[in-house]
C-alpha cells in the first residue's frame, strides 16, 4: 500500500464525515430530520454506509492492487497484515484489502439494485392490488402468499443448479424477483387506506386517471414506509448474496464479493484468519449500519409521529 492509497483512504473517511455533517445540517431543519439524528446509532450508521460507498466508488484509488492480481503465487500466499498488504493476502496470493474495496462495489451494488428491483415490483403489485381491489387484489395477494411460503434459498439453489454459473445481473434479478412479496403487502395496506382519502377522490373528480392518481397522489404518501422497509431490506439482501456466494452459488470467482472472499479464505482459516475475517467484519458492519439507519428512518418518518 503506497502513500497515495493511504491519502485516498483518509479522503474517503473525511468524505463520509462530511456526508454525515451535511445530512445532519439539512435534517435539523425538519422535525423528522431531528428525530432521525436523535437515534444514537443513526449518525455512526450513516458514517459507515457513506464510508463504504465512497470506498466502493474510489476503489481504484484506495486499493493498491487489482482485485484479481495474484502478487506472487509462490511466496506471498496467506501473508499476515503488513504495511505492504494492510489486511494480508489470501490463499491465492491476492491482496485482501484490494479485494475488499472492489468487493464493496459488488456486494453493495447487488444489495441496492436487488432491493430496487424488489421495491419496484412490490410497489407496483401492491399499488395495483390495493387501488383496484376486487379480483385483481385477490389474485395478486394469493400469488404473494405463495411467494412468502416459498423457501427462498432453495428456489435460488434450484435456479443456480439449472444454469450452473450465473452472471451478476441475473443474480440481482433473481434476488429482486424473490424479494418483493413482503414489500407488496406493505404497499397494499398503505394504498388501501390512502385510496379512501378525500384528496384521492378530489383527483378522480378532476379527471385524473388511475396512473396519475396512484403515481402522484397515493404512492408519494406511502413513500415513508416503503423507504424504511427498503433500507432494512438491503441488509437482508446482502446477507443472502453473501450466503449464496459462500456456498459457491452466488457471485462467481474470481470476481470479488464479500461472500465469496469468505469462501476463498475459509479453507485456510486456521493459518490465515484475516482473509475470511475481514470480509466477514465488513458484511456485519454494513448490515448493522443499514439496520441502525433503517430503524432511525422508521422513527423519523413514522406518520403517526408526524405533526399534521
Amino acid at each position, binding site marked *: 500500500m503506497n502513500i497515495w492509497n493511504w491519502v485516498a483512504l483518509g479522503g474517503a473517511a473525511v468524505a463520509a464525515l462530511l456526508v454525515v455533517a451535511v445530512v445532519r445540517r439539512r435534517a435539523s431543519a425538519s422535525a423528522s430530520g431531528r428525530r432521525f439524528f436523535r437515534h444514537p446509532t443513526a449518525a455512526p450508521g450513516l458514517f459507515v454506509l457513506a464510508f463504504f460507498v465512497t470506498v466502493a466508488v474510489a476503489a481504484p484509488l484506495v486499493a493498491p492492487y487489482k482485485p484479481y492480481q495474484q502478487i506472487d503465487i509462490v511466496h506471498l500466499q496467506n501473508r499476515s497484515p503488513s504495511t505492504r498488504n494492510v489486511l494480508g493476502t489470501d490463499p491465492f496470493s491476492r491482496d485482501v484489502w484490494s479485494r475488499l474495496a472492489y468487493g464493496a462495489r459488488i456486494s453493495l451494488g447487488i444489495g441496492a439494485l436487488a432491493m430496487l428491483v424488489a421495491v419496484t415490483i412490490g410497489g407496483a403489485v401492491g399499488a395495483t392490488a390495493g387501488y383496484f381491489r376486487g*379480483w385483481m387484489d385477490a389474485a395478486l395477494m394469493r400469488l404473494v402468499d405463495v411467494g412468502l411460503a416459498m423457501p427462498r434459498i432453495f428456489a435460488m439453489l434450484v435456479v443456480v443448479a439449472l444454469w450452473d454459473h450465473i452472471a451478476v445481473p441475473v443474480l440481482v434479478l433473481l434476488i429482486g424477483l424473490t424479494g418483493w412479496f413482503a414489500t407488496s403487502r406493505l404497499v397494499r395496506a398503505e394504498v388501501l387506506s390512502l385510496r379512501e382519502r378525500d384528496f384521492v377522490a378530489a*383527483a378522480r373528480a*378532476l*379527471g385524473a386517471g388511475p396512473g396519475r392518481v396512484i403515481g*402522484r397522489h397515493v404512492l408519494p404518501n406511502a413513500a415513508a414506509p416503503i423507504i424504511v422497509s427498503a433500507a432494512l431490506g438491503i441488509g437482508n439482501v446482502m446477507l443472502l448474496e453473501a450466503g449464496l456466494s459462500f456456498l459457491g452459488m452466488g457471485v462467481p470467482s474470481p470476481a470479488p464479493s464479500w461472500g465469496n472472499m469468505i469462501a476463498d479464505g475459509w479453507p485456510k482459516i486456521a493459518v490465515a484468519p484475516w482473509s475470511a475475517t475481514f470480509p466477514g467484519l465488513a458484511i456485519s458492519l454494513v448490515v448493522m449500519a443499514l439496520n441502525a439507519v433503517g430503524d432511525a428512518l422508521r422513527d423519523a418518518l413514522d406518520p403517526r409521529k408526524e405533526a399534521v
Partner: protein
Amino acid sequence: MIAPPPLVAVQDLVKHFAGERGWFGLGQPRAVVRAVDGVSFEIPPAQTLGLVGESGSGKTTTGRAILRLVEPDRGRVTVDGLDVLTLGPRELRALRRRMQIVFQDPYGSLNPRMTVRQMLAEPLAIHRIATGPDAERRIAALLEEVGLDPGFGRSYPHELSGGQRQRVGIARALSVEPQFLVLDEPVSALDVSVQAQVLNLLAELQQRRRLTYLFIAHDLAVVKHIADEVAVMYLGKIVERAPALALYAAPRHPYTTSLLSAVPVPDPTAQRNRIVLSGDVPSPMHPPPGCPFHPRCPHPKKNDRCRTEPPALRAVAPGQLAACHFAEEPL
C-alpha cells in the same frame, strides 16, 4: 313564465353497499346497506339545492354518486343534458370539467405532499387548459378569486389554516371552470366565524360564475341563506322537498319539523317548541318496515299504516313534496 330546463336532474338514484364477499367474490354477500334508495331531484341553472340529513342518511353518497366517485346501482343523472351514468371513461373525463366537488374535511381533501400551486396546476394539465406562464397567471387569479394571496401557491397544506385550506379546495374545484358544484358539507369542519366567510365566498362565486350548487349539510341552519330549494333526506330517501321559504315556514314532514326545531335561535327569550327525537337513526342495513321514520316519529296520529305502508313522496302544496301519510296535518 316557463321554468328553464334543469341543469342537473337526478332520477331514482340507488346505491346499495353490499358487504364484501370472501373468497374471490364467490362467498355469500353480507347485509346490504341501502345508502341511497331512490332519490330524485332537479336543480335549475344557477340555483342551489340544499340536501340536508343526519349522518348516515345517504346525502354524501348521493353527491358522490352524481359525480360517479361511487358508481350508483340504478337511476339516471343528467348534467346539462348529458347522461352521466352511461358515459365511457373518455366522455366522463370531459364532463368532469363541468362538475366538481368541495369536500367537508379541509385536512383530508388536500394532498399533503403537494404545494397549493401543484394542486391547482394539475387539473389545468389534465384538461390541457393551460401550461407555463399562462397556467401561473390562472393559478394566481384563482387564488385571488377565493380570497387568498397568490403567495400561498408555495405553501403545503399543513402550513395553512382550516379556512385557508377550504379556500384552496374551492379554488381547485373552480380551476376547470365547472357549471355545477357538489358542496359536501363545505363549512361543517370550520369555526363559526370562518363558516360565515366561506359561505359568503360561495354565494359570491355563485353570483359571479352563475354556478349551480348541490349544497349538502347536516342541519337546516347552514343552508337557510344559500338554498333556493331544500331536500331533506332520511335513511337514503328524500322525505321532503320544497322551496326554501315554504319549507322553513311550513314544514310538512315531522322529521323536517323536528330538524327545524333543533335550529338554534339567537334570542334567549324566544319561545321554542323543541321536538327532541328519541333514539338514533335506525341502521340502514335493517331499515324499519313501512315509513322509515315511524319508530322516531313524534306525530300524534301515528298509526299502523305508518308501520306497514311506506308513504310515497307526493305533492302536498304547490312545489312542496313530502313523504308522510299525514302531511296535510303537520305537527
